[in-house]
């Protein structure tokens, strides 16, 4: 039971309190790049969540059974990047096969998940925080959910803003950055909600 509570708490804390995008400032590139439409933003969120969940599991396995067992912690970066790159390749092939429309909408940002710092950040945080296998998966999944939440919220705001009367100088990227900043401040309100 205690384990279950821990997992729920971990989920809520990763999604809201330590949101990857808005509190840790990881993965800003796709956050600004593909947040023009809610639909594509959601798809990007799903793809990222999928990669993050798999990364969480793979990272724990590699870290525990290879790197720690053989005492090779210095190979963390190399091995994690390798795993992430392969996973992204896999997701790309999968999406290309199943949904060409989505593949086109995500465009260059899909292969860029590889170099998305949110994913590598996740991979490096898992050994740092000492999570177990289940926790790693939940951590990866909830990080993805947090990313999806943030990007969908921003996309919704930007869609509404299309019809707004934005001053000429702020049109486009500037107003998006301001929005992102305000969202980050709003999410700071969650800090102190839970502590583990």
């Amino acid at each position, binding site marked *: 039971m205690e384990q279950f509570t821990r997992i729920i708490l971990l989920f809520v804390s990763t999604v809201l309190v330590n949101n990857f995008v808005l509190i840790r400032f990881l993965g800003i590139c796709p956050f600004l790049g593909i947040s023009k439409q809610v639909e594509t933003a959601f798809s990007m969120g799903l793809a990222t969540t999928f990669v993050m969940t798999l990364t969480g599991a793979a990272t724990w396995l*590699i870290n525990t059974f*290879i*790197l720690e067992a*053989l*005492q*090779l912690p210095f*190979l963390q970066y*190399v*091995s994690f990047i*390798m*795993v992430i790159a*392969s996973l992204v*390749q*896999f997701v790309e*092939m*999968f999406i*290309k*096969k199943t949904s*060409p429309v989505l593949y086109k909408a995500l465009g260059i940002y899909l292969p860029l998940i590889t170099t998305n710092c949110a994913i590598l950040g996740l991979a490096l945080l898992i050994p740092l925080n000492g999570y177990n296998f289940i926790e790693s998966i939940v951590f990866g999944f909830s990080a993805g959910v947090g990313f999806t939440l943030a990007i969908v919220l921003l996309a919704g705001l930007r869609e509404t803003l299309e019809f707004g009367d934005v001053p000429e100088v702020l049109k486009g990227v500037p107003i998006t950055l301001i929005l992102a900043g305000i969202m980050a401040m709003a999410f700071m309100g969650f800090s102190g909600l839970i502590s583990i």
Partner: protein
Amino acid sequence: MDSIYIYSLISMGGLGALLAAGLGFAAKTFYVERDQRINQVDDVLPGVNCGACGYAGCSSFAEALVAGDAPINGCPVGGDKLAQLLGEIMGSTAVVGEKKIAQVLCAGGRKETRHPAEYRGIQSCRAAMMVSGGTKSCQYGCLGLGDCVTACPFGAIMISDNGLPVIDPEKCTACNKCVLACPREIITLVAQSKENHIRCSSCDPGKVVRKICEVGCIGCRLCVKTCPVDAITMENNLAVIDYSKCINCGLCADKCPTGAIEFNGRQIAEIEITDKCVGCTRCVKACPVAAISGELKSRHVIAQDKCIKCGICYEACKVKGAISVQYLD
């Protein structure tokens, strides 16, 4: 100590091999059929991603071409040569589009126009136009500060000493960048074979144009009346050529009192019907001024006093050598 190296090599190598195998398997499972022609088209395209075709880049154009959305001659940079290559790949005979080049529709340089003001500021037409419409008395004419020169990615435009852009037809690729850059909208793309150009964009009435420019269109309608194929119309005090009708006869340029119409082609000096004529009456029907007379199956005659030397009969004649044309020069 040595074990670290060995373990590193084995673990990372093994991991890499495992992932590679997984990806290889996935690549086969999720293989998407892609038209081989897309790659072939991509290979022959210029690859500069200039966007002149209207697509995001060369590879998007290649995809659209293979999908049948883009025309074979859609890449203005590659021109006819590329269109032929693409035609071979696509297996269809290329509808070779004629090469177009940019034409500046203003001939009023420093000498021909008045400049009531002097502009000292950012050397850009767009900026100069913000300051009460530029320094020229003509509010339609070229400002001569070279926004088109900056926009041209091929170095085909130069500003002459007279303050007008000169376009090098050899270098021009019809990429449309200068057309978009010009704040006065006086540059257009015209097929290279067309020799008549009305070098004026002024919509002012003739009285005003006469005062401010020596070579402007004064809206006298002489060209409209002269044109044997009705290719010229008046729109807002300005003569406009419909290039789909123009036959390059140069008569309009001859008649234009201000010299606003430029003609670079060859003008006909003499035109005659030879004894090869089979009497098909094609030319009789084609002649806009009814200068040709003749019965069916007998040799036709051109009445030289009526003939305006437009060359329409020469174009209409299907018998080789039946109409002989001699050009001036």
